[in-house]
């Protein structure tokens, strides 16, 4: 079963002459353990796709299923609960709360979901440790580098029993070494059973994905074939 399924999703903003078709009849499913990248230029609809997949916005038509549950069948509170329990978000600008330390940022979603503070903090520390940030747990966002902030954001996105990871240009503000580190962490989360969707215009980022879907003017226009064995690259080189 897919962890995320978008069926015939369309999104229209405005009315009449001002009508904008941000997404048009999108079908997309993402299985557990797989990383899907959505590539497209600015205005192609990729961020809208992500906000709809994450129940932050409703589609104009079509249905979104997260872990088998149709979002249209959930109340506002039901969606909020689903977001806290099942979905992790990673944004380009990290979205960490400046007044909270790294460990408090990571434990916050668990505490909001009713987990006891001590238990939430232990889970947050474990998550930070997994990302090599244990010694930065008490630091505030402005005391962390960009790469560290994004690793905290990913630790927050995967803490608890989240199953779906949604990332919007997760390494957009990072240098290439930190960007690669971020993608390795997202991939590791998928190897542990999460499903992830990364929207990006960056091919280096997208190349970590199992599948790349190309979006143009709100439509899926193409996608990559299953990744071939890389050994062929080495075998085809000259001077063998």
């Amino acid at each position: 079963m897919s962890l995320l399924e978008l069926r015939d999703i369309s999104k229209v903003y405005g009315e009449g002459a001002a009508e904008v078709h941000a997404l048009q009849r999108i079908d997309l499913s993402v299985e557990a353990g797989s990383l899907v990248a959505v590539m497209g230029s600015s205005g192609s609809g990729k961020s809208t796709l992500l906000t709809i997949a994450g129940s932050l916005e409703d589609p104009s038509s079509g249905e979104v299923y997260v872990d088998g549950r149709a979002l249209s069948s959930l109340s506002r509170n039901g969606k909020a609960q689903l977001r806290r329990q099942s979905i992790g978000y990673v944004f380009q600008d990290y979205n960490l709360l400046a007044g909270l330390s790294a460990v408090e940022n990571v434990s916050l979603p668990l505490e909001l979901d009713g987990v006891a503070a001590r238990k939430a903090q232990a889970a947050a520390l474990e998550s930070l440790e997994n990302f090599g940030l244990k010694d930065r747990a008490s630091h505030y966002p402005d005391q962390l580098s960009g790469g560290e902030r994004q690793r905290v954001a990913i630790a927050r996105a995967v803490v608890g029993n989240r199953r779906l990871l949604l990332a919007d240009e997760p390494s957009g503000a990072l240098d290439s070494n930190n960007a690669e580190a971020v993608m390795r962490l997202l991939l590791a989360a998928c190897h542990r059973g999460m499903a992830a969707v990364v929207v990006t215009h960056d091919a280096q980022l997208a190349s970590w994905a199992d599948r790349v879907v190309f979006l143009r003017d709100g439509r899926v226009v193409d996608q990559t074939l299953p990744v071939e064995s890389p050994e062929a690259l080495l075998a085809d080189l000259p001077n063998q």
Partner: protein
Amino acid sequence: MSVRHALLALLSEGPKYGLQLRQEFEARTGEVWPLNVGQVYTTLQRLERDGLVEADDTVEEGPQKGFHITTEGQAELSNWLRTPPDLSSPPRDELVIKVMVAFRMPGVDAHEVIQVHRRYLVQLMQQWTRLKEDESRFDLNFALVVDAELFRLDSLIRWLDTADGRLKRAAMEGEAMAPQSFPLPKARRKVGVKQ
């Protein structure tokens, strides 16, 4: 990259024999640039002729014959390291030409042509990135070679994205679609392993 300078670089670390040079060359390039043993000996003979390396006279010809770099060889290597490769003239890039032709050809959707190439390049990048995932084989040299290939492919995709945007804007602004003469890049840059 020239085999000549690669061998000088290896010999700058100390004397080595031919077979060892071949093995170390392949290991240093992450086995991405395989070298046959004939290339090694031909190149060593030329380096010796030019006074850049000297052979160990105590051993007869063969795989155990040792070589060391001369002072002239060190100077040549140092000079080569600091000489930028010739990037002054654009290569006659087949991809650029295909997109230019597609844009002017009646009945052809240039965006669709661009997407065909974009998908192919992304798929290639996925394969190179898979090589990165296997950290057991991923030493520093191999990482540098794979990164170089990924950045090269990435630059092509960025160019395709920019071309896509330019074509879209041109269509919106109603630029005349009639065939025009356009300049094609003339020179081709040489890349890869040189003998």
